[in-house]
């Protein structure tokens, strides 16, 4: 019986309130190239195929297949999963921590999986445990996703046979200060009941993680792709699928399954943008890119010159009535409040950039101020402890680059 912890719903960010999805009338829509997602196709073909298949094969063989698929971390890191695991296995991992906090605002891909495909999520976890030789798992989901808990538990019990040697702890995340707890070491602190702030790395979790034991931390989506890649090799044949949360001023907001490297325009068109002025790529820590520059492939290599990344796969569309500066102000206010305050560059830098962004919106900045803002941003990116402080300047930098400063080309 998995352990379960309850707390009151996360007031700021309940799924429907935070997105435009509710107003579209359809909750989450599944649109894949083939009319339905890989997850729907997998479920249609019979659940637990992958686990059963694994029974007959060896862990090494599964790891080899994961390696061959090129599956990458879908929580934002984009590091090859097999490499992460290979580095961790010699340490004899004790715990698997599955990160379903999804603290990135306007991001609901993990919710989609937890709500609609709990079997696939748990199957991915079970297979991971076998490959890693782990017998204890912590699945931590966003407190606003508590409606998924019952189904996750029911599936776990129904298929107790498949999970016999695995102990599952099913937890909900914090109600507030959610964002930074999504960082893997902050999540470990949270599970241990400590203050949810990142730890110094090294040591990395695979060396010294939960309760000082070797631990592997993976995102929900990452592990959910494992049953797919084991049963449908074509989906990973020379390509990498990804769930994106596409919302904003579009007629059909929702979760879309895309292929990395696909033209960004095609991805956006699926959601039928009413009018397109600019797009926020990669969530709140991503950047703003004007419509004129969207003629790129949706992949990190192609997005990098624009100063943005795929990240957790969030795309927010803005029409002509929207002011990009207002989004920059919003983002920096968010970071200023969410910074855990541990390190100087991020704690003070987020406040200073929030002030600068506000001045920018008020039309009250000199060239000298702007130069200073760049120095602040550089110091934050070079010296912050975790990804929050390093990413916080990105919305501002992308705005200055694309909207405010003269372009070279």
């Amino acid at each position, binding site marked *: 019986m998995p352990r379960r912890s309850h707390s009151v719903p996360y007031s700021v960010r309940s799924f429907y309130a935070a997105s435009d999805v509710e107003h579209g009338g359809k909750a989450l829509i599944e649109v894949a190239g083939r009319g339905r997602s890989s997850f729907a196709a997998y479920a249609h073909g019979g659940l637990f195929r992958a686990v059963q298949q694994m029974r007959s094969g060896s862990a090494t063989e599964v790891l080899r297949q994961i390696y061959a698929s090129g599956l990458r971390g879908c929580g934002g890191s984009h590091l090859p999963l097999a490499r992460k695991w290979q580095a961790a296995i010699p340490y004899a991992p004790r715990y698997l921590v599955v990160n379903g906090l999804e603290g990135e605002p306007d991001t609901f891909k993990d919710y989609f999986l937890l709500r609609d495909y709990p079997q696939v999520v748990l199957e991915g976890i079970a297979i991971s445990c076998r490959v890693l030789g782990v017998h204890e798992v912590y699945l931590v989901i966003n407190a606003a996703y508590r409606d998924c808990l019952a189904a996750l538990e029911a599936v776990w019990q129904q298929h107790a046979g498949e999970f016999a040697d695995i102990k599952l702890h099913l937890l909900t995340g914090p109600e507030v200060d959610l964002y930074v707890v999504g960082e893997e070491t902050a999540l470990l602190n949270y599970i241990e009941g400590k203050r949810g702030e990142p730890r110094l790395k090294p040591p990395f979790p695979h060396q010294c993680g939960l309760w000082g034991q070797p631990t592997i931390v993976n995102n929900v989506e990452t592990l959910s792709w494992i049953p797919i890649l084991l049963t449908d090799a074509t989906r990973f044949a020379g390509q990498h699928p990804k769930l994106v949360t596409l919302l904003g001023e579009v007629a059909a907001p929702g979760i879309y399954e895309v292929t990395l490297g696909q033209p960004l325009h095609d991805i956006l068109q699926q959601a039928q943008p009413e009018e397109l002025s600019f797009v926020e790529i990669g969530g709140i820590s991503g950047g703003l890119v004007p419509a004129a520059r969207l003629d790129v492939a949706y992949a990190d290599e192609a997005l990098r010159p624009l100063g943005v990344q795929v990240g957790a796969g969030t795309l927010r569309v803005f029409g002509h009535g929207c002011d990009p500066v207002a989004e920059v102000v919003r983002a920096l206010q968010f970071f200023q*409040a969410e910074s855990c305050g541990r390190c100087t560059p991020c*704690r003070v830098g987020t*406040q200073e950039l929030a*002030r600068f962004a506000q001045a920018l919106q008020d039309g009250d900045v000199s060239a000298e101020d702007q130069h200073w803002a760049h120095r602040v941003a550089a110091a934050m990116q070079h*010296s912050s*402890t975790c990804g929050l402080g390093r990413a916080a300047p990105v919305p501002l930098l992308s705005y200055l680059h694309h909207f405010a400063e003269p372009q070279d080309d």
Partner: protein
Amino acid sequence: MINLQINGRCVQAKPGTTILQLARKHDIVIPTLCHLPGREVRSVCRLCVVEITGQERLLPACSTAVAAGMVVHTHSQKCIHTRQVLLEFIIAEHGALHTLSPELRALAAELGVTQARFALPPQHTPDCNRHGSDYIRLRQEKCIHCDRCIVACRDQQVIHRAGRGAAIQLTFGNHNAALPETNCTSCGDCVAVCPSGALGEHG
């Protein structure tokens, strides 16, 4: 022994040595603030960041171990620029340069920082200082969150950090108690290491 380079010199170090220890051994001065010898290393101030060839990010010398073939620069432009900005951050958070510790003032002089070009809006109410004791006077609005007091109070573990971002502040005991209600022994270690006067003695 590990072979590596620091500021152009080829040197050797035992595995596990930090870049800060190595630098000190070779009379290279890297500024530090949060680091207290012999205490838990928290690397929160980031003033000691150094550049390692091939890495975009700077790394804190006080907690980064040497590695074979590492090429370390302790005073590159990038390091200096970052330290200058961080020092301005510290001054802005504290409110002034002249009331910071002599050590920080010397560092400011060395880096050519004379003031912070911005001020942070005041976040603290007088209420936040009500948890002092007869012996310790609190002035949280002066705090630069270097964590020195937290690691100095190693035995009693009285001091903690609470809150987020700008609203961060120190609390005492496990449940935000007043100092006399915690196991504070009034040993004064925290006051002795505080570079900002946020923790001071009465009188």
